[in-house]
């Protein structure tokens, strides 16, 4: 049976978007965390298509599209952790390679140590707070955090971020990394 042109055009859009997601997953090294970019690409396309079919009259916002990608990747990361099919990068063993910049060797060494501590402390924070904190520290707004992490409201996102940051700072302080500001 021939498909209608609208259906075909939408499918083209989802395929192109999925391909972009796949490229970025490899670029940002998420495949090193046990995520299979091909699986995520396919899952993103299926979820987007299902969402559109389910709610034909609903608006299809960019934030919703982003959320679909975020939740698909998070699900893939969880599956990878449970499966442990591939060895994950060992945070405790591998010192972060600091990006080259206008800083001296001493500061770079101190930075590496602090990053090491930050990674360790973040790993100890409950998962439901970890992603909101990570997004906040990367400059996402509370609304974006709520959308991407699937949090019910901006207020709930604010509480998760606030408590998570307090916990993170306390852990860093307890480990002797000093006092941090937001």
């Amino acid at each position, binding site marked *: 049976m021939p498909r209608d042109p609208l259906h075909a055009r939408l499918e083209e859009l989802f395929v192109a978007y999925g391909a972009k997601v796949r490229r970025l997953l490899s670029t940002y090294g998420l495949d090193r965390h046990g995520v299979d970019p091909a699986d995520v690409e396919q899952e993103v396309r299926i979820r987007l298509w299902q969402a559109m079919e389910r709610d034909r009259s609903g608006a299809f916002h960019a934030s919703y599209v982003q959320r679909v990608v975020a939740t698909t990747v998070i699900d893939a990361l969880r599956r990878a952790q449970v499966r442990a099919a591939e060895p994950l990068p060992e945070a405790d063993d591998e010192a972060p390679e600091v990006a080259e910049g206008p800083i001296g060797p001493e500061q770079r060494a101190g930075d590496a140590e602090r990053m090491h501590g930050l990674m360790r402390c973040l790993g100890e924070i409950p998962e439901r707070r970890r992603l909101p904190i990570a997004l906040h520290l990367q400059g*996402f707004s509370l609304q974006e955090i709520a959308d991407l992490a699937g949090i019910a409201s901006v207020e709930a996102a604010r509480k998760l971020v606030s408590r998570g940051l307090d916990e993170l700072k306390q852990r860093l302080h307890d480990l002797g990394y000093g006092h941090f500001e937001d």
Partner: protein
Amino acid sequence: MNDETSLSSLYRRLAASRAAPAEARLGAMLRELEADSEALAADVARLRRPAHAVRGRDRRHATDRRVAAPLRWISGLAACLAVTLGVLAIQGQPSVRWRNVSADVRSVAAPAHALRGDRIFASGGEAAAPAGDVIFRGSFSARGS
């Protein structure tokens, strides 16, 4: 704020490093994907818009037809009722409205000539007494004699 004690600054440097945690990589990836997500959302909305417009208009018309017929009947009946009540109100209107009479107006005894033809007061007079009443006449005159 000192760059060394800024958590955001430290985290961004960590996210740029090879050993970045998955959350940091995901956040950075989503940032780069923003423009593509907006483009996809706009393309999908543009493709779906004509179908929605037609469907939405059909639905509104169907709703109008379903609701309009009873509303026409109800409004017609209400108009008839209002007209009928108006006519009845005008016809049955009393000549004196007691609520319009001032409370300090004193009541005045009606003059005697006004009561002349009144049968209630007239019944007390001689002319009104029944001529053939034997009960009263007979019994009292017999006891007194």
